[in-house]
């Protein structure tokens, strides 16, 4: 589809990829601070619900633009046996793990909404899962940085 200049399109795709990761990581950091804080626990559930909606939008954009970034390589995509290829495989596995921990996290927040929880900020398990989400996103950003270099 020669509608857009290829370089401009790749720039838009890459910008969207980085912006989606910034949204996912920044939002997870914010929610982690909220659930670790004992101040204002009543607002924590509303914030977590909003984040979960945003997270899945970001996750969809990340996968979509990630495939788009690979498409920009085309046949020049490095072989899986190279250092870049091994690192990229690690990134794919890390993203799969992120999705695997995020589905039960989102569903748990939806269950808490039904239970009209007042004690979200006090939940140690919730702190663990949001801290785990931040850690996994940070690992993915690190691996992405290694790939970019």
């Amino acid at each position, binding site marked *: 589809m020669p509608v857009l200049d290829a370089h401009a399109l790749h720039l838009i795709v890459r910008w969207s990829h980085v912006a989606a990761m910034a949204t996912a990581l920044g939002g997870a950091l914010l929610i982690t601070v909220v659930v670790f804080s004992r101040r204002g626990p009543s607002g924590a559930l509303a914030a977590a619900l909003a984040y979960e909606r945003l997270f899945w939008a970001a996750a969809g954009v990340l996968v979509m633009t990630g495939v788009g970034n690979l498409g920009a390589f085309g046949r020049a995509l490095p072989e899986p046996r190279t250092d870049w290829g091994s690192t990229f495989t690690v990134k794919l596995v890390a993203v799969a793990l992120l999705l695997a921990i995020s*589905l039960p996290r989102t*569903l*748990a927040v*939806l269950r808490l909404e039904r239970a009209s929880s007042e*004690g979200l900020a006090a939940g*140690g398990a*919730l702190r663990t899962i949001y801290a785990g989400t931040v850690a996994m996103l940070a690992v993915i950003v690190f691996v992405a940085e290694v790939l970019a270099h």
Partner: protein
Amino acid sequence: MSWALGTFNSAALALALLLLLYPRGRSGDTLAGLSTLTGLALYVALWATTVYATRRALHGIDLLGDAGAGDRFFGQALRWGGFTGIAFLLEAGLIQIVSLALAGNLPLASLPFLIPFGAIGSMVAFVVGALVGVTLGAVDLAGVRLSRGLVERIAGDGPVASVR
């Protein structure tokens, strides 16, 4: 809920394909056959169709509140997975036709021959979509079970009023 599950399902499918193709060194040729814009359009089509199909599959089913909803969900996952397979095949065909038309390479004379291929392809797409739907439905249900355990742990940590 359908937003999260539908997005998860489409992203998991794309990642699974990448994890299958890339280590075998086959993704470069596959991706090179698509322009970036065509690839993005295909993913948006898959994403939108999967979210819609998940919403329809969950209609009348309370996965979070009804412990026996899993069996009914499997039937719906089979049906709406099949729907997603056919819909995505049609969308992919349409995107390719638009892509070729914009590039000025659309072979108009060969379009009628696509009809029998489309009919056979739809049957294959239904079966593949149904199998993928049931597989992802099982993963979704595993997520539902894990979320129940997680909420029980959270309830043990803090003053949660009542948790199902």
